[in-house]
């Protein structure tokens, strides 16, 4: 078990190096002179020069890289042009909103996606299977940003049940906060439920084909006991690994959803950064999100190793 954890921790290091290199390289793929592009078409020569100095673009590449890593190791992601303060501070303020939205959508997704997948698998090749899988397929086909606009039209404009935009932080009341996030979270969850239902069905069918299930049935065990005692535990372990993928999908979706619902999250920060050509903000935000995803995948893998008796007792 300890070996599994160590091996997994060590394998994270090259990914972290790669992630930081890609983020560093982002500013250098700008065609031509990045300082001119960032300063914009109307900038004076002085402004371009000050941006070049601010970002250290006037220094040789290896110096730029070592400065970038030194700062990174101290938690310094640079300063934002548009916000006039540190990028880290801006991310710290906005991260809770994105994480709350992501968590909310995953809390909705897990029970519904797993239940739908199990139902379809146990009723394989019946109308129930066809109906559930058709809905799941629709879920993974419709863009979540369009769904959220349709959600606003129906639940905010026509029915008046939920707010169409804006964010209430948890400190101002949990219920009001959840209400402000309900429409965005459901918009995100539809795609994820479809994805999870399809994966759960495939995994369950795989497990139901195994010899130990046939043995359990052959020895006369009640069907519900076979399912609950033998099948379900073997279905749930691989499903846990899907959580990492779901978080990845949810955060990607949040980039657009936050824009629609005017939620002050990291996704909105990235989009604003892009529109204002604020590269420290873009670099810092996507680096922070990637680090969180690497961390979540690490936790999920370790959890998987812990839950799987074959790995735990090894």
């Amino acid at each position: 078990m300890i070996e599994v954890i160590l091996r997994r921790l060590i394998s994270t290091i090259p990914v972290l190096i790669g992630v930081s290199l890609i983020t560093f390289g982002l500013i250098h793929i700008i065609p031509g002179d990045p300082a001119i592009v960032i300063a914009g078409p109307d900038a004076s020569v002085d402004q371009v020069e000050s941006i070049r100095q601010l970002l250290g673009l006037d220094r040789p590449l290896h110096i730029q890289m070592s400065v970038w890593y030194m700062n990174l190791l101290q938690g310094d992601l640079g300063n934002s042009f548009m916000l006039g303060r540190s990028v880290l501070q801006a991310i710290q303020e906005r991260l809770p909103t994105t994480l709350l939205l992501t968590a909310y959508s995953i809390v909705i997704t897990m029970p519904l996606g797993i239940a739908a997948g199990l139902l379809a698998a146990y009723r394989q090749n019946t109308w129930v299977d066809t109906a559930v899988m058709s809905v799941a397929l629709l879920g993974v086909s419709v863009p979540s940003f369009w769904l959220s606009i349709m959600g606003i039209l129906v639940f905010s404009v026509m029915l008046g049940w939920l707010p169409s935009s804006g964010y209430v932080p948890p400190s101002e009341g949990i219920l009001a906060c959840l209400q402000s996030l309900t429409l965005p979270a459901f918009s995100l969850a539809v795609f994820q439920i479809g994805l999870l239902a399809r994966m759960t069905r495939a995994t369950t069918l795989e497990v139901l084909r195994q010899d130990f299930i046939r043995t359990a049935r052959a020895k006369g065990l009640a069907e519900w006991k076979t399912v609950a005692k033998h099948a379900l535990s073997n279905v749930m372990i691989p499903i846990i690994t899907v959580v990492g993928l779901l978080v990845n999908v949810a955060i990607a979706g949040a980039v657009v959803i936050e824009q629609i619902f005017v939620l002050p999250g990291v996704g909105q920060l990235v989009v604003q950064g892009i529109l204002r050509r604020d590269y420290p903000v873009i670099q810092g935000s996507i680096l922070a999100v990637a680090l969180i995803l690497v961390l979540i995948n690490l936790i999920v893998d370790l959890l998987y190793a812990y839950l799987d008796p074959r790995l735990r007792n090894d």
Partner: protein
Amino acid sequence: MTESTLQAVPLEKPRNQLLSRMLSHRGLVIGAGILVVMVLAGIVGLLGLAGDALKISYQSRFVEPSAEFVFGTDHYGRSIFSRVVTGTHLSLLIGISVVAITAVFGVLIGAIAGYFPRLDGLIMRCMDALMAFPPIMLAIAIAAALGAGLLNLIVALGITYTPRTARIVRAAVLGVRNSEYIESARLSGASDGRIIVKHVLPNSMAPVIVDLTFVFAYAILAEAALSFLGVGPPPPVPTWGNIIAEGRDYLVDAPWISIFPGLAIGFSVLGLNLLGDGLRDVLDPRLTSK
């Protein structure tokens, strides 16, 4: 054993067998049908047969869907039908280009990683690092760095989806690398390049073809999202994403502006997903769960 089981079954060529399996798969046929409709709509849009998508008419602003304007009109009086149909060829163009980039680089990188164990670790860690970013976030960051525009969007999405395909190609190559027929090709003196192109890749293609169908679907969804955010081809060029974005401001009075392009995206992606599921069932029965 009954007599009937002993009767000779007429031998079919494998290719005909594959075709008949494809044609008897309902989802695959529907998916392929939707793709054909998309391609036809794309051609109609490209040739301008669905009307002028840019024609402004202030007399016919915000017209509801009617016989004259099937999908209604927008705030400039432009026909939403013309705009959605014209947007189809851009979505198709972007989807196909992303699939082409992903196929070329994904297969190349995956085959090298899978066939040469010494390079495997380094290449796959780079791919892992790229996959650590949420796809849309990486794509908008790359597209923003390169500058807004069609080509940059395609490059950004290509970079974003290549690691996924490379990983699948690598797994498939690893699966066949130590097969006897590869060994015999090696013993007969074939070069690594020849073995990869002639023997390894053709036998690893099934999962790749299935994956590329899904990449096509993801590319259409991602392109719509990026255009919606303003990182795609700039207006007035109609893309499904930017038509929805423009319609957002008139959601209450003219919801049809956003409804129809969204349905077009959903319909196309549904078709590609059906096609991908069907191809997986037919080409790679090991992956299917039936």
